[in-house]
């Protein structure tokens, strides 16, 4: 199950962060997402050391944190997508698929002429679209 998705801007500031858990561990998820930026920095700055695919937007598993797994995705405008899941068995292909759909939703949201680039995403339709993706993904893997 995906417990949290986040969009992080170029200055590493949160643009969108939504958790999908009932329990009040929102703060913990914030911390996890924030810490995972270090791994993204590391991968982006030393590409040859850590990751074989230079032009790949999907960054793969960033780090396992306690019971969570954190995945990352970097768009070519240096906006980062971060996903936190509690599934222990995750297929990379599923993650890639998720991020592709999420990216599409993000592109639509920032294409809104009233959206100022670099500001938080407050669009409700983006939020509902994201939760739909998250939901479909959750059911897809459990089914």
């Amino acid at each position, binding site marked *: 199950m995906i417990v949290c998705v986040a969009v992080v*801007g170029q*200055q*590493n*500031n*949160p*643009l969108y*962060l939504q958790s999908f858990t009932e*329990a*009040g*561990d*929102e*703060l*913990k998820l*914030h*911390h996890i997402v*924030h*810490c995972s*930026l*270090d*791994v993204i*920095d*590391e*991968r982006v700055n030393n590409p040859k*050391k*850590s*990751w*074989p695919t230079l032009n790949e937007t999907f960054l*793969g*598993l*960033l*780090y*396992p944190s*306690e019971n969570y797994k954190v995945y990352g995705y970097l768009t070519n405008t240096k906006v980062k997508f971060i996903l936190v899941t509690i599934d222990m*068995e995750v297929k990379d292909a599923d993650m890639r698929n998720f991020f592709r759909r999420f990216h599409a939703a993000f592109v639509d949201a920032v294409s809104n002429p009233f*959206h*100022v680039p*670099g*500001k*938080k*995403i*407050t669009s409700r339709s983006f939020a509902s679209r994201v939760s739909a993706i998250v939901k479909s993904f959750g059911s897809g893997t459990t089914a």
Partner: protein
Amino acid sequence: MEDYPEELRTPPVSLVSLVGCPDLHPTISAALHSEQPPINTLALPDFSKISIFARKQRDPLDAGGHPPEGILKKEWLLKHRTRIPAVVAALFSCDQVNGDPAQWLQVCTDLENLKSMVRGRNIKLVIVIVQSTVTDGVSEDLIVALRKRAEIDSKHLVMFEQDNPLEMKQSLNRLSGIFAELCNTYYREEGRRVKGRIEKKTFGFPELNIRYCFKVAVYAEFRRDWAEALRYYEDAYGVLREMVGTSTRLPHIQRLVEIKAVAEQLHFKISTLLLHGGKVVEALSWFHKHAASYERVVGVPEMAFVHWEWFSRQFLVFAELLDTSPASIPGNVSPQFGTLENPLTEWEFQPAYYYQLSAKYLRNKKLSLARSLSLIECSDSAYKVEGCPDSVTPSNFVGQYARLVEEGDTVTVLPLSDAEYTSYAIREAQRFQDSYEIIALFRRSWESFNSLKATRMASYCANRMAREYFEAADFINAKEFFDGVAGLFRQEGWATLLWETLGYLRECSRKLGSPKGFVEYSLEMAALPIFSNSEGETDGDKRECGPAGPATLSRRENIQEEVFNLLKGQTLVAADCSLKILEDQPVLVEVDLVSPLRMVLLASVAFHDQSLKPTSSTSITLSLLSQLPCPITIDQLEIQFNQPTCNFEVVNAQEPSMAESIRGDPAVRVEMAPSLTVLPDKWLRLTYEMKSEQSGKLECLFVKAKIASFFMICCRAESPASMEDLPLWKFEDRVESFPTKDPALAYSGQRFIQVEEPEPQVDLSLNASGSALVGENFIVPVTVTSKGHAIHSGELKINLVDARGGGLLMSPRGELEPFSSDSHHVELLGISGTLEEDESQLNLDNIRKIQQSFGVVSVPDLGLGDTWSCNLEIKWHRPKSVMLYVSLGYFPNSAEAAPQRVNVHKSLQIEGKTPFVISHRFMSQFRREPLLLTKVKSSSDSDKKTSLALNEMSILIVSARNCTEVPLRLISMSIESNSEENNSHSCLVEHSHGSPSDNGLLVPGEEFKQVFSVTPQTDTSNLSVGTVCVNWTRDARANLAPGSAVLTRLKLPDVNVEKPPLVVSLEYPPHAVLGVPFSLHARVQNLTSMLQEIKYSLGDSQSFVFSGPHNGSVFILPRVEHIISYMLVPLSSGSQQLPRITITSVRYSAALQPSIVAETLFVYPSEPTFSIGLRRKELDPISS
């Protein structure tokens, strides 16, 4: 890791024992220890001590069907490392063996005893016979007897010679070789024996299986067979894991404790072996497996803390292993680590990651322990009633505890019940300060993440550390770390995380009794961009949030209300401490450009104009913005400028009484504002008139807002044009409004304005016209006329700057630095006043300072309408164009009244020109040509130097052309010799012709020529002819003022003087008449003391017929003159060219041809009649 016993932490080392001959033991021990691999020695001085090898009474349970009491015996490993040797060496000296029968008997007895001890354990036996000298022989019979008695191979009986070092070394080598071999055999046999039991499955219990596997692995380690050791450890680990659900031997809680203790030991061994083998990835995977398989094996909730402590230790130990492991991360080898399903990431190779998790689990332990304690306290549970047994000690088995009961002298060991164990464990756990342990772990993690440049991970650790400090009531440390963490969150805009951190900081400040800190953190929290509504608050208790409470809008409002109540003088009462602001210690909060409190109050100040005349006024708009969730009402605003006279205050018109009470200085201007309430995210704009008397920059510095009784917030004023976005809020998607009503002003408005100088009312004029001439003292008259201002303490500054270079004007560098040689070309000589000059020189206060291109002179006080003037004298040394800058600074009133200095500037470009172009020419005498060899030799290229003949007079024509635009009067021209003494000998210069006519007045372009005769008298190649001195004046009048004449000098180039060997002069009449013959003589003088052969020729000419040879040659004796004569008859009239005469010196192969001018003759058609008075008229038509 340090808690583990030594024998577990280090790889096992083979052990051998030495018995007898104690004096040799140190030598042998040292030799064995330095072997590779080393061998440890258990040295027994004599045979009476061998009983320690004795086997205990066989454990009947071990063999029988009873279940074993535990899994691993605690002492077993230590025993095999320190007490049970693999090999025993019996050392006998030669004397003992060779001695009398009694001694031999003793040897045999000792051997028998040893054999009986050793046999039970399969320990290998070696006999060493020590020879003290070579001669000490032991007979072959004795050796065989001894060997037979000991039942050993012949090679296991060693002769040890200690005679000389070489032999001793050989003996030692032999000995250690035998020992190593036998150790290997022993451990292999032992291993094989135990392995046999495993394979046959002769045990009925998994405990034994684990124990056997462990033993095999240890024996393998003794043999350094790491692969086998690893395999058996893993087997043991696997069997153990299965026991978790099945074992029933011990009470439930203790069973788990034992299993985990054994698992820990096995896991440690496995990890160590893997890491030492360089298999980092395998070690990490193994650790993950280990952690995953035991993480959920918590056991009963009351004892959860035991589990978490154990679990935390697993991480800590692994982190330490990873830290000390020599194996490097295979970063560059395989890009994707681990398996495909379970990839490893960067952090998992870092010890810091495990330290952090260890700390996290230790925190779990702390929380579980607290929970267990509270459970015990509130429930009157069985644990409490039963109490804790006094003496609980670890028992003989790993991970087991037992109770010691002393009854008199006898001590019995009794098993514990779970309840007893629980209370024992709780009591033990309470003794530890978990907080400090957690902090230490987080600190290690923090340090390593920092060194890895993973700032966010590090700040997460710092955050956790600070929380521990907070919980341990160490607020000073907590605050320090929280402050660091908050900085990062502020920078990256993580409002929710910042909220949590600030909540802690606020609480720290409160606990530390710092109202200022409390107010600042509270205000910052209240101004954070957090808008989530209060839905979440219903389950607020469940949420994991700090003392700040959930991050919601309503909570922000609460916080603001709370802090403003405090600032109004109310006491903030909390459970443990209260905070109150004292009247004599009001809180002053300063907000600068980088302060996070800009969100609380932002002051933007914009002048409506860019510059201001001293008399007029302009508007200033003051805009305030607050992001606090509730409106704030300001009682009084103070606006401060860099010119204190401009400061003013704004008070709230709605509460004038309040304002009255606050008002301090009556001299300060006070404005009323209809309302001073700042609404959330809305600019409060106030516009006022401003005036300033003082010129220069007027800048608004601070805006101070007095809000509640005890609160003052001092904001640095910001210009709207260069205002930074608000931190955190800049990422919010909100409508941004302008600080000023006029959007253009919001983009261009500045918080400073330039106040102009008062308009000068004084005329400054520079009256020079035309260009200056090089050499003269050029006069520039300067006139200062007062028109509307009187002049006090006036000062005139003069600056000369190269017109092309520019830029030096008024710059202090130009005044102080020594001038470059270039700027010396123009020089300010002096400033001459008119009437006041004497006066100003007398007055010592007045300044008068003149440098080459800079001058200052003071101007006397002038009344209205007065005039003062002076002349600047400037001299040009080279033609150059310069800018003359003159500036007058003065006070319009007498000094005390007005501090305002007024400046007037004027500039003038002046061209410096050369007055005369002087040129010169040398000529030889008319119709006389000396033969100058240098002229002949030098090729057609024009010679650099003019050559003159020695003692021959030459003609020098000097001409000076007026190249200015004004007529100049040339007074005289002369040639001065450069050096007086040499002149008389070297060169005689005589003024022969020409003097300035018409008073020497030369109109522009006109040329003046003067002829000099020069006779060199010294044979030198560098004869200085002299310097042309032209004395001239600009003044056209005939009678000169003394000193007004200017002398322009030009040094003539040096000439080459040489002695001519031959001189040819042509002699013929000045004119001829048509048809009338005349004679032409060429006179050749030989000036040398040698015979000179001369060839001469005369060419044909249409205009003349001549008599005489065309060609000829002649010898001329030394110092003799030869004349070649011709008779010529002119055939046509007019100016005619004579036949070309060429004289060639054979010796010098130099042809001498007179110049064309020298060979031109005018032929009259008939005999002319000359009349002196008519000459000019007659000649004019001809010459034209």
